[in-house]
């Protein structure tokens, strides 16, 4: 059954059309000359020009980028540790609570996470700014990293780790020399996920940011509340372009790495 039945072909076509048409329209109309967004009045890149000169947006973009880099890096370290502990750590005191705290943020409404973190920061007298957004983003994105990494750890052949230990590695060395290189693609996609979650977050950042630090989603949200604007269309197009290039590159790189790993494994099997 290698041919697509007509039913499947129709549902895939309609499904992907539904997913992509809104974004295609957005991209097309970002090159619209007129101020009225819904009426086409000729091709132009003027909104991109205005965007580059908008300092408020540029400042916000810079804040967002820094927050995303710091929080996703921290979240990757903590999330990988959490995944390793969950899959390999055996039993320890409060394991159920720990696994609950890892799964709960995945489905927790952002308004609750945001509100509760804000009240914590005020309670301990921490000034709201870049630091508090980084702490907040690290907390919820480490759970996503941990889920991604543990799904790789679960499927991974444990005899490789055991072989390393038998050959005289300490558990730490076995992790660094054997486990980490194998789970690296999952760790990288975890980092990317944490990075985009942080870039994207509006609600938690609104609660935890102060007047000194405004992120791009907060700026976009306050602009689009007033309605559709051509400048936001241009900004959206740029963000979509960056994400598309990033995701396609990342998937090509991991595909190549996985193929190489498979070849190595096959070569090793033949050598035996």
């Amino acid at each position, binding site marked *: 059954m290698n041919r697509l039945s007509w039913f499947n072909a129709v549902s895939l076509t309609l499904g992907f059309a539904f997913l992509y048409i809104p974004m295609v329209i957005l991209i097309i109309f970002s090159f619209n000359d007129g101020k009225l967004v819904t009426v086409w009045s000729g091709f132009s890149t003027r909104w991109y020009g205005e965007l580059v000169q908008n300092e408020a947006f540029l400042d916000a973009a810079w804040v967002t980028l820094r927050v995303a880099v710091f929080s996703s890096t921290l979240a990757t370290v903590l999330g990988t540790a959490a995944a390793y502990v969950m899959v*390999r750590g055996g039993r320890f005191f409060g394991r159920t609570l720990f696994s609950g705290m890892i799964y709960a943020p995945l489905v927790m409404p952002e308004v609750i996470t945001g509100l509760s973190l804000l009240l914590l920061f005020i309670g301990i007298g921490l000034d709201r700014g870049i630091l508090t957004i980084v702490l907040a983003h690290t907390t919820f994105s480490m759970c996503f990293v941990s889920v991604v990494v543990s799904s790789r750890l679960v499927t991974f052949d444990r005899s490789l780790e055991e072989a390393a230990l038998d050959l005289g590695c300490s558990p730490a060395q076995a992790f660094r020399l054997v486990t980490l290189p194998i789970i690296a693609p999952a760790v990288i996609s975890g980092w990317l996920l944490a990075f985009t979650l942080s870039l994207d977050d509006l609600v938690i950042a609104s609660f935890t940011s102060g007047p000194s630090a405004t992120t791009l989603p907060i700026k976009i949200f306050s602009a689009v509340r007033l309605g*559709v604007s051509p400048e936001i269309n241009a900004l959206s197009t740029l963000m979509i372009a960056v*994400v598309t290039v990033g995701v396609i590159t990342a998937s090509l790189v991991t595909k190549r790495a996985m193929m190489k790993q498979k070849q190595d494994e096959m070569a090793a099997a033949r050598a035996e």
Partner: protein
Amino acid sequence: MGRPGLAVLDSNGRGFVGELMRRAFLIAVPYVWLLALFLVPFFIVLKISLSDTALAIPPYTPTLDLSQGWSGITEFFSQLDFENFVWLTEDDLYWKAYLSSVKIALIATIFTLIFGYPIAYGMARAPEEWRPTLMMLIILPFWTSFLIRVYAWMGILSNEGYLNQFLLWIGVISTPLTILNTNTAVYIGIVYTYLPFMILPIYSALERMDESLIEAAEDLGCSRIQAFWLVTIPLSRPGIIAGCFLVMIPVIGEFVIPSLLGGSGTLMIGKVLWEEFFSNRDWPVASAVAVVLLLILVVPIVLFQRNQQKQTEAEQ
């Protein structure tokens, strides 16, 4: 189960104790982080929900004053009360908002399932060399900003938007439809943004399915539709359950979609909480709203977690 048992044999001379400490450290760092930044904040929300509103900074009393020792603590507890929760039951805005959030989430989840299942099914039955590309096409919008994906619909659904222009042009309607700022727009927005969450778990369940089971059912006299109902649907059930939870739970507390696509008639609790906090600056009431929302979500979150754990254990 744990590895440290083997570390006694560690030939590098790093002792058992060192490994044990390292393991404890590895567990402690993420654990303490989540306790401090995930669990403790909930208790703070609970505490503030029992406090009184005040015109001060922070805008609530009492604040816990540990410098007065025991009397400070007893004084603190004696001032807590359930006033804000009573307030939530007296003003029917909150009840209506909770009910309508749950209703919107349920209906939207059903729509997402109806639209998502055929797509996941088509992907799982597509030629194998297409699947990675199809998978990427599903994931790509998920990486794109949520805010932008919701925003894209504002231009489509408005009165002079692209959808109305198109429908007027083909002559289906003679006056523009009002869709933006109604619940219909909210449903469209939810289905659109949450569709990948529904498709991915169902797809992974369907992809693992052994197609010879369908053939067996058909050989035994099932029609294609019967085979679908009796074999395919039950086998994809874990995916359906995971997908429904992944859509329904966050949608109940959704804020961005109702505030951009919904209108004044769209009542959702996430928006109420936001307004209570940012517009009315009533922190105790906002906290009480959050506590009740959390209580509503406890059951589905626990069920979801059970489902996930069962899945993980089955894979292990």
